[in-house]
């Protein structure tokens, strides 16, 4: 599923990286705990999170996550958005709750990351 499609489904606002909207992602993982993300996320996995501090962006950088979606309309601070821009991490914010975000993407055909 392209990032463009994801942004549409989630009624999301781009924070940075929209130029990469044709990038494909093949699964998603939702968590506010970055160690869980570090344990389970594979390449090409979209991160859905309510954590809007710099650690969410750092975690994406460590794992080469293709895009981060901040849920519940929580807006990261400008320095966090700058950090995402600097590492060329596409980021968007959606007004929907985590539950609704997951439901919408799953219904549209985006599978969960496979847990080992």
């Amino acid at each position, binding site marked *: 599923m392209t990032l463009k499609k994801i942004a549409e489904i989630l009624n999301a606002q781009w924070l940075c990286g929209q130029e990469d909207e044709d990038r494909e992602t093949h699964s998603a993982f939702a968590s506010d705990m970055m160690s869980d993300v570090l344990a389970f996320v594979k390449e090409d996995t979209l991160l859905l999170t309510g954590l809007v501090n710099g650690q969410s962006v750092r975690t994406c950088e460590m794992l*080469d996550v293709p895009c981060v979606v901040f849920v519940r309309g929580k807006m990261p601070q400008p320095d966090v958005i700058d950090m995402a821009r600097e590492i060329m991490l596409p980021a968007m914010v959606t007004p929907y709750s985590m539950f609704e975000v997951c439901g919408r993407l799953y219904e549209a055909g985006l599978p969960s990351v496979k847990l080992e």
Partner: protein
Amino acid sequence: MMIKDTYPVAAGDMTVAGDVSARIKRQMKRLGIPSDIMRRVSVCTYEAEINLVIHSMGGEIEFEITAEDIIVRSRDVGPGIPDISKAMTEGWSTASNEVRNMGFGAGMGLPNMKRNADEFSIESTVGVGTNIVMTFHI
């Protein structure tokens, strides 16, 4: 290609936690380390760095590349770990709520390191500090 760099990590400041791991990752990228190895090393250095920030009184991360291996060492001065087997259990954590609100403290850090490294060893002395060595075969 032989490299050995040491990066200090200060205790307490979550806003810069991860900066050392990001520098190490960028260096691996420049050197063309295969992406699977780079990813595993990155997860381990990041978890180790976070632990230095949230659990220790300060320490350092050493990043070494030899002909065969990447070796990451974490050393700190701090409270040490009284029961290592407990600390290695998934979900076991003494992290504060403040740390949890920053996205860490799920008790997955040490297990993540062990799972991702080809070799993992940890030594800790209560009241002195903790040493971790992780080796990744290139």
